[in-house]
């Protein structure tokens, strides 16, 4: 191939290569310019764009949950607080074998199946370096036992977190309610940005009704994170604003006394300060421990609450709708006087039953053989049914309905708690609308003794009683007394809503009714005369007994023969002292039998306690403010 005689021109070849090297130099220069141009584009022209992207990469905004406001009763006793609780938390990335870890930990600290299931759910959702709770609410012994063995469990630690706590437990459950984990449905209705760091929300009671005040405002931390999202340092912080602390109108001492007085009976007690509408006690028995719900109630405990025939979760005070029985008699008597019926000023002869003209059916009196000749006063004091059959017949259902709704029967009282029941004040219109049936005259008669369709909640009864005590001044019952501003720590009084006034003709009409109610307790023939013994004050009241079970026309109701759950409800409404009412009470003792025997003594105990404690403390107690300031201060330290 190669020509043998070609002479290699070394100089020329070197020249050739040099020429090619020069070309290469030019190319290299061009390529370098391209690189520099590219870098100029990235680092100078698009600098802002990339600088922003880089900042977005690095800085993340992490919400910080506000501390929930505390709740106190009217005297400064803590009802709801935030306590540090210990939870056992695991950082998954630091653990080699999660299954083995749970098994090993289970030997030191009891871990239920529920705990494990919940933990495994979290394990799927959260990142590898997040600290995930495996067990909540360790007791001190468990914390100690873990601490001793801690070196055996890398990646596991005990964490203290603030957790909602109800120190009064069962005593407070029905009005304070409880908080629980936010569920899907609630998530739809809250301002999600304000709840970004919050796990719990008020579910019932005060916790639910004043959620907005209690929750506070979320804070933020600007944190520097790495590519995996792990927080490296805090760059900036905007502190959360804690929730307002609330003082309730409730007196937990009174609450406890009322609950104790009900004893084994199911029932409800509502006490109201007539002059303000302050709800002093809101008792429903049986109760439950609201603490169970805070970190999620386990299925067994929940099943027990739900499955109990006594329905402990049911708030009888605002949701229990009972036939009010004879407790309505003072109201109808007042209606008779106010409408100026002739009959209200005349006596009726009671022979034990009443018949509508031309009808066979007997409307019986509770007293066999009857009361004899009865006027309005005696009809209230001895609770004569026949008198009220006659009165009702004369009033007519329309006037009865229109008079009673002025006291709040048949509609919610407007208490500042959610889910209150309406009760029912029947009228022909209502019956036509809801049942498409005409109103029968007999139904007017039984409405007159608080039976038939009529239903009232204990709260409605207490509110109506307070209205009676205030001679027509009707205040909306409220549980919020004042709140403490979370930043200034200034107490902000809650102004009661303006009162509604029931127009009335003559003051004497009210005097007569209230005097009759006084005689129910203090008169020699009063149905509740037994509870007057030893009372240091004058009390006005009215007993009531509500039928749960209809007794046939010609049968006798024998208490002993009827199943406990079908026995009559005992009711009692009262206020005291008569001349200057400080407390109005409604008591319902479910299946307690007659109101005079079951409900009235409970009311006496409640009123005794309250009037005593008011006397001891004096009407205006300055110590409240001191307690509140110190609590507010301690709350800001918890944060």
């Amino acid at each position, binding site marked *: 191939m190669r020509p043998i005689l070609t002479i290699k021109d070394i100089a020329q070849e070197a020249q050739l*290569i040099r020429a090619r090297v020069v070309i290469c130099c030019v190319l290299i220069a061009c*390529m*370098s310019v391209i690189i520099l141009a590219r870098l100029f584009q990235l680092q100078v022209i698009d600098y802002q764009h990339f600088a922003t992207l880089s*900042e977005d990469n690095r800085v993340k905004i992490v919400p910080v949950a506000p501390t929930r406001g505390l709740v106190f009763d009217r005297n400064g006793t803590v009802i709801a607080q935030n306590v540090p609780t210990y939870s056992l938390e695991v950082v998954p990335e630091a653990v080699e074998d999660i299954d083995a870890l749970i098994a090993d930990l289970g030997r030191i600290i009891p871990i239920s199946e529920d705990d494990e299931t919940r933990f495994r759910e979290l394990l799927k959702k959260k990142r590898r370096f997040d600290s995930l709770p495996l067990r909540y609410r360790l007791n001190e012994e468990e914390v100690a036992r873990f601490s001793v063995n801690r070196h055996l469990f890398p990646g596991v630690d005990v964490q203290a977190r603030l957790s909602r706590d109800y120190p009064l437990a069962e005593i407070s459950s029905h009005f304070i309610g409880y908080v629980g984990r936010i569920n899907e449905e609630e998530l739809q209705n809250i301002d999600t940005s304000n709840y970004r760091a919050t796990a719990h929300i008020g579910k019932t009671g005060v916790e639910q009704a004043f959620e907005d005040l209690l929750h506070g405002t979320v804070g933020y931390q600007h944190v520097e994170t790495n*590519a995996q999202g792990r927080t490296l340092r805090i760059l900036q912080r905007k502190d959360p604003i804690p929730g307002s602390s609330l003082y309730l109108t409730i007196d937990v001492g009174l609450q406890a006394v009322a609950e104790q007085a009900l004893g084994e009976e199911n029932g409800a007690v509502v006490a109201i300060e007539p002059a303000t509408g302050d709800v002093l006690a809101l008792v429903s028995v049986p109760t439950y421990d609201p603490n169970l719900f805070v970190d999620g109630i386990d299925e067994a405990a929940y099943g027990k609450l739900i499955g109990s025939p006594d329905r402990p979760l049911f708030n009888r005070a605002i949701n229990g709708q009972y036939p009010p029985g004879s407790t309505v008699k003072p109201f109808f008597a007042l209606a008779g006087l106010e409408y100026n019926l002739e009959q209200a000023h005349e006596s009726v002869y009671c022979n034990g039953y009443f018949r509508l003209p031309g009808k066979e059916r007997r409307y019986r009196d509770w007293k066999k053989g009857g009361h004899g000749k009865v006027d309005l006063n005696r009809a209230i004091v001895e609770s004569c049914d026949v008198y009220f059959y006659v009165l009702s017949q004369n009033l007519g259902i329309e006037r009865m309905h229109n008079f009673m709704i002025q006291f709040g029967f048949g509609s919610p009282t407007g208490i500042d708690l959610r889910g209150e029941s309406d009760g029912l004040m029947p009228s022909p219109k209502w019956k036509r609308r809801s049942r498409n049936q005409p109103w029968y005259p007999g139904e007017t008669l039984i409405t007159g003794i608080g039976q038939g369709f009529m239903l009232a909640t204990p709260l409605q009864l207490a509110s109506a009683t307070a209205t009676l005590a205030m001679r027509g001044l009707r205040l909306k019952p409220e549980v919020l007394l004042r709140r403490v501003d979370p930043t200034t720590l200034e107490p902000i009084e809650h102004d009661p809503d303006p009162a509604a006034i029931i127009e009335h003709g003559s003051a004497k009409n009210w005097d007569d009714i209230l005097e009759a109610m006084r005689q129910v307790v203090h008169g020699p023939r009063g149905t509740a005369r037994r509870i007057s013994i030893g009372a240091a004050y004058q009390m006005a009241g009215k007993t009531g007994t509500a039928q749960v079970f209809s007794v046939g026309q010609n049968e006798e109701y024998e208490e002993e023969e009827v199943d406990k759950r079908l026995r009559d409800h005992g009711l009692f409404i009262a206020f005291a002292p008569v001349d200057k009412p400080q407390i109005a009470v409604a008591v319902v003792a479910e299946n307690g039998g007659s109101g005079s025997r079951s409900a009235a003594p409970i009311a006496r105990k409640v009123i005794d306690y309250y009037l005593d404690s008011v006397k001891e403390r004096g009407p205006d107690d300055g110590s409240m403010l001191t307690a509140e300031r110190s609590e507010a201060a301690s709350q800001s330290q918890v944060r």
Partner: protein
Amino acid sequence: MQETRTLSQRLHLDLPLLIGLATLSCIGLMVLYSAGEESTSTVIRQAVRLLVAFSVMLAVAQINPRHLFHWSPWLYLAGLGLLVAVLYVGDVAQGAQRWLRLGPVNFQPSELAKLTVPMMVAYFFAERTLPPRTLQVFVAALITIVPTFLIVRQPDLGTALLIACSGGFVLFLAGMRWRLILGLVLLLAASAPAMWQVMHDYQRRRVLTFLDPEQDPLGSGYHIIQSKIAIGSGGVYGKGWLNGTQSQLDFLPERSTDFVFAVLSEEFGLLGVALLLAVYLFVVFRGLYIATQAQDSFGRLLGGSLILTFFIYVFVNVGMVSGMLPVVGLPLPLISYGGTSLVTVMAAFGVLMSIHTHRRLLSN
């Protein structure tokens, strides 16, 4: 004569080149300290590697280029044999079969090929008249393509590209005719669809990602997006040493190896990058100068090819990190963490120094 020789001459070193390389190494260690989470052990490990690599350079520089010339065919054949061997008995790492276990040492035959291929092509042309004839060009192309193909099979696209370049540079410097160059370029363009067929999935993905990185910002596009953010957010003056948030907070992947250039750009800005580029260009131009000063065609062709390949190394890495070129997994020579390619690069510089310092005295 003995008296006038300086220390560097006696050691067969080229002082300007040595200074350039040492500067690059120091910059590399400094950036590495930042990229490697300020771990001194990483820096020490890399310093030891640099020491080894510089020793290799020193050793190679002592070899007379005439010996290299004579060894070229044998080294080339040995390299080819190892490349075949690695396909059958090589260790697999990260989906590629690149490593050969030789006793205690792990060894990549493709690294050896980076030297032997340009040596062999230069050897082929050294004794022949230049410019080469068409047939000779084809023989030289074959010498280049066989090992390139074997390396593509491993697969290691980046190294294959460099080896193809190194052979091509010899051809170009040897004076390959422009018509042929144009024809070859057209042929390559025409064969692009065929190349696409031969490519592995991950290689195709890299090309697609290069064309549109936003398409898969958390998957294959993540590297390049984060790298561009790092470079761009560095601005003119940079965020300062150890202060690059992209680098320090883990957003930038492979930040001490292939993407180390992004760390440097983020922390030292356009000014730092320009300085680095200036040092590289100094080294490259000094290398090209050495090539032109070589005493024979073998020296000129080999020296020129090695230094041009070095520049391609830099260009491809910077191009890929700044999003101009697809990601092909080439380190930034002398800066990136890692030892294998470092040794080869320094051996190449050893060859350059050897060419420059072993001079036959023509007139005397």
